[in-house]
């Protein structure tokens, strides 16, 4: 059996809410990170409030629809980000959200490695038929990363996003179970 929680660069963990909250509050001050990871307007919340959300997420994480992880780098064991999966039980579809809050770990394959684990987990543990995500046009690094993890661009909603007075498309990607299985077997999908 594969180790579902360990990749080549990262591992997926559960953290104590206190630690996650402290790091997340710090990441939230980085508005470039926020704008890459999230479509909502940037907001600042207290450690206390963030901790309450995380505790709630931990509880809800035991619902069959929701799976939350933290991401740690294997080389120095640093907590660098988070990963959330929402499973639509009826359609066997997983929606995923990921964020690497530690900037020094951007562009070095950590996020891609975590996303590969996420896709593997969705198909091999959750029995999903497809995994889906959305990202912003102004985040080309994420696009390349998701492509490496097996996702294909399925379309773009034109100018759906507005930042700094400019309009940007939102990109929608998906990977199908059979596509991913073929790739695992070394075939071209």
């Amino acid at each position, binding site marked *: 059996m594969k180790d579902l929680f360990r990749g080549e660069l990262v591992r997926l963990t559960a953290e104590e809410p206190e630690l996650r909250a402290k790091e997340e509050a710090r990441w939230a001050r980085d508005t470039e990170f926020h704008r890459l990871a999230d*479509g*909502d*307007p940037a907001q600042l919340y207290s450690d206390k409030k963030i901790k309450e959300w995380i505790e709630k997420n931990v509880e809800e994480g035991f619902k069959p629809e929701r799976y939350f992880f933290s991401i740690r780098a294997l080389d120095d064991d640093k907590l660098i980000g988070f990963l959330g999966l929402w499973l639509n039980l*009826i*359609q*066997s*579809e997983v929606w995923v959200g990921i964020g690497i809050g530690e900037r020094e770990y951007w562009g070095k394959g950590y996020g891609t490695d975590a996303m590969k684990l996420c896709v593997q987990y969705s198909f091999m543990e959750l029995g999903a*038929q*497809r995994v*889906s995500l959305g990202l912003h046009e102004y985040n080309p690094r994420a696009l390349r990363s998701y492509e490496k993890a097996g996702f294909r661009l*399925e*379309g*773009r*909603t*034109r*100018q*759906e*996003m*507005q930042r700094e007075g400019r*309009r940007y498309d939102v990109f*929608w990607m*998906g990977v*199908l179970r059979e596509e991913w299985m073929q790739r695992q077997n070394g075939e071209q999908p």
Partner: protein
Amino acid sequence: MFDIATQLFEGQDIRFGPIDYDNDPEVESKWTHNAEFMRLYAIEPARPISAAIVKKQYEKLEKRMEEERNFYHFMIRAKTDDHLIGKAMIARVEWTNGSGQIRIGIGSAEDRCKGYGTQAMKLLLRFAFAELNLFRVNADLPEYNEGAIALLKKFGFVEEVRRRQALERDGRRWDLLVFGLLKDEWQSQVSA
């Protein structure tokens, strides 16, 4: 052309109105017993809903409209006899991005193919672009809903996303489509 005096909720044969708690639950409950309608209208599993529960859903819906302020819902009624024809709504409005998601349903078979959907779409788009001042609207639907796709195309919507095999029904998987329409595109259409 439209101006401030042009009524937002009055079409040619239909009008938009609020919920009628005395009469609508019975009618909508009937619609939910029609699996074909439910499968065109929503991607959630079709199931019959009693009038009492429909009434409760209305209450929840109006509470949501009041509290969240990002959701607009109208009942479509016939001008002749005021009977309930369907529903039209704009959900998930994002004010910072000026976007929203539209949906129209015509409930009973007798009211289909009479141009009511087209008239409702006209009202709904004007409301979205000229009252909410949205920049774009989108519509999500399964690839098998050919009637709705034709209606969207008639209004200049563009197929933007094809989420492959995202819906399972009748033992096979179907693509889910996202159509989008920008304010400019709507504007050039209504002024033409």
